[in-house]
């Protein structure tokens, strides 16, 4: 057991892996070559079409202990991962790992197969019930939570080997050219699947919309795809691009958004060429709305927006606030429509978006990002994985990637939820290190990291409620009281991997 630089206890080894404790956001870089995949030869007339998922699983030569992957662009509408797990069970495969880009609530269907030993590892963060049951010790499954950039990194370095990548292909031809913009399961960007297509040992395109050659545009190309399988349906279209978040109407959320946009203005970054990322939450959208108004008032033209894209960001592109959108994932139908027809709306891979170990990720060019939090602490560390209950409930997304990349990382959160303080002495779990978080904005105060003294002064000059984070923490706990700490056992049930592969925190089993 050793402490990492944030004071978190990290075991020396976990499930046979030697762990490298987190030190800082910038320096770790293993001396390795990029991973590669077997060379294949295809001659004219060779067919890639296979009749079923079962046939594809067999053709890949899957054995006990191997890893499969899927992408999560179909979000809560995804049927593929559940189908694959059931098929693997039917084939008698055991001790398999899921190395998908994310696991959603819809995948709670695989819980019986985890209990049965079909699945024993999940090499990605999980949303929903699986994480809760694992935290309670009611389900045995090793989980390694990775950010979007960190997951791309783990495939590129070969730390995670994907033996067979099953790519849900909303539009596909018989040679395996894929795009996400057509067909009944259209999801827009296929940003997360690119890395799998390049690094998995075998790549299988699974489609419910097989079109005559060539499928165009080509997002993932035939030169990377081994097999093509046609199935009835990839997913439930109603849940694929179903994000329906709207600009918040909660007065406290709107106040947070107002403060956040004033912080952006005060930072001096809001000028021609401004680049920006915001989430799809109601408060984040309200920040974007305020920022647009400021851009309109100042006749400012931005360069790019990036991340998961919503209709609001599409409006900003179409109204000329930004020249380009870099899209890893579409959150709603409007975004899918836009990426289909607007050349300024670009599909990018998670690798290009956020991998720290390539020759330059998009997040490094970001001026400003708005991020959420389940908790923050007096060292500016942020938790998005667990809640104050101690349960692992959320995946990281790009949180720690964009915080590290952007010049100004602003976390927006209410100072309390219900009767729980959100500003804590120490977060339950560190997702994103305070070294990469610049400002925390709540409805009761704005806390600025000490390294930004000038920004602090400017905000004070504008009569904004700047507060020292330790005093602010005391102010909030005077109102809420100090909640009784959650008790944990020693057993580590999940690792929180930082984007560079070091271990920033672990999730321990909650004592019931």
């Amino acid at each position, binding site marked *: 057991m050793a402490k990492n630089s944030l004071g978190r206890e990290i075991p020396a080894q976990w499930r046979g892996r030697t762990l490298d404790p987190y030190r800082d956001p910038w320096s770790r870089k293993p001396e390795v070559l990029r991973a590669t995949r077997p060379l294949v030869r295809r001659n004219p007339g060779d067919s890639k079409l296979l009749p079923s998922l079962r046939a594809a699983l067999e053709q890949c030569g899957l054995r006990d202990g191997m890893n499969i992957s899927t992408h999560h662009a179909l979000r809560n509408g995804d049927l593929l991962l559940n189908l694959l797990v059931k098929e693997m069970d039917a084939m008698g495969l055991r001790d398999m790992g899921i190395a998908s880009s994310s696991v959603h609530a819809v995948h709670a269907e695989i819980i019986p197969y985890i209990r049965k030993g079909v699945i024993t590892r999940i090499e990605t963060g999980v949303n929903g019930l699986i994480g809760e049951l694992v935290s309670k010790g009611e389900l045995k499954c090793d989980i390694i939570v990775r950010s979007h950039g960190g997951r791309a990194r783990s495939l590129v370095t070969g730390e995670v080997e994907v033996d067979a990548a099953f790519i849900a292909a909303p539009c596909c031809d018989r040679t395996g050219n894929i795009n996400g913009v057509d067909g009944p399961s259209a999801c827009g960007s296929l940003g997360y699947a690119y890395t799998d297509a390049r690094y998995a040992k075998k790549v299988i395109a699974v489609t419910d919309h097989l079109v005559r050659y060539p499928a165009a545009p080509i997002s993932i190309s035939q030169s990377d795809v081994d097999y093509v399988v046609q199935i009835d349906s990839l997913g439930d279209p109603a849940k694929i691009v179903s994000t329906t978040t709207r600009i918040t*109407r909660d*007065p*406290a959320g*709107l*106040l947070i958004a107002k403060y956040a946009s004033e912080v952006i203005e005060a930072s001096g970054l809001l000028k021609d060429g401004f680049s920006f990322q915001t989430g799809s939450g109601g408060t984040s959208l309200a920040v974007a709305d305020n920022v647009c108004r400021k851009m309109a008032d100042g006749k400012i033209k931005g360069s790019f927006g990036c991340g998961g894209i919503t209709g609001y960001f599409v409006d900003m592109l179409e109204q000329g606030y930004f020249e380009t959108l870099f899209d890893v994932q579409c959150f709603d139908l409007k975004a899918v429509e836009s990426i289909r027809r607007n050349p300024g709306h670009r599909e990018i891979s998670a690798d290009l978006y956020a991998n720290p170990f390539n020759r330059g990720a998009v997040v490094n060019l970001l001026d400003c990002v708005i991020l959420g939090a389940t908790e923050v602490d007096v060292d500016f560390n942020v938790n998005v994985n667990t809640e104050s209950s101690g349960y692992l409930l959320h995946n990281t997304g790009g949180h720690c990637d964009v915080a590290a990349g952007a010049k100004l990382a602003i976390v927006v959160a209410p100072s309390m939820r219900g009767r729980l303080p959100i500003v804590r002495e120490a977060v339950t779990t560190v997702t994103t290190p305070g070294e990469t978080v610049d400002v925390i904005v709540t*409805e*009761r105060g704005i806390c600025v990291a000490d390294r930004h003294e000038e920004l602090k002064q400017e905000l004070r000059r504008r009569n904004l409620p700047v507060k020292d984070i330790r005093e602010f923490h005391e102010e909030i706990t005077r*109102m809420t009281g100090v909640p009784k700490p959650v008790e944990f056992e020693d057993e580590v049930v999940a690792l929180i991997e930082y984007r560079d592969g070091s271990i920033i925190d672990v999730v321990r089993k909650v004592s019931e």
Partner: protein
Amino acid sequence: MKLRRSMLYVPGNMPGMLQNIPVFEADGVMIDLEDAVPLAEKDAARLLTRNFLRSYPDRDKEMFVRINALDTPYADADLREILPALPDGIRLPKADTPDVVERLDTLLTEQEERLGLTIGHFKIIPSIESALGVLNCVATARASDRLVALAFGAEDYTASMEIDRTKTGEELFSARTQVVWAAKAAGMQAIDSIFSDINDMAALRAETLLVKRLGFTGKSLVNPRQIEVIHDVFRPTQDEITHAVEVMEAIKRAREMGTGVISLRGKMVDAPVVTRAARTLRTAVAFGMIDYTLSDEVIHGEK
């Protein structure tokens, strides 16, 4: 001049909303024990409100409490529970006659004596919200020295008139005018009614502009999201401020020449113009928009 542009209602039985009162930039808050609180929660709301006021000593806004009407069985208990927590004053519903205000004045005096406070500590803003109230409001405005403003309540007023309230408000014109007359004649502020459609900011802006033109200096409101629009409307525009400064400079020159009238770009500047300009500048100073020292000698001339 005490700003009362925005007087925000917050239900007294909702702890989640009470706790956010310090956060919003309304000029004043009126914690409601009356219409927003169901009968079964009257006592709980009193306790919550009292405890909230006690836990909020560093107040950056005026705190009023809207008690239940004096002819209900709840009003006495409201005052008994709330006043020890020292609100700035009481918003009095159904102030149909001057007698009602006088009765509240007496009750407040009794409580001030009991609590050892200066007599007159608690202020009153009566709600003029019925046909009878409108007819009597000239006298009501003079019923107690505690009054700082008259408030118009359009919802109850239209109910008492058996008419519908519209977004354009033609049906309220005469009543509003009467309330403003009564307030101005008694030397106090006039606060307009709430605007209940919290998603229609354009109509809120139009109504606020209208009542500003009539002479109201503030509005009651039901949602913090409405604060920004209301403050924006009551804020003098930059053009108005610039013009007011020019008027003051012009009249200063006139006074130096020994006259009270001067021409500014072809328009006559005399006493009423100067009074209006002085008012604009006082408002701008109160809003923190400019730094300007007004001199009575310039405004009124040397005696």
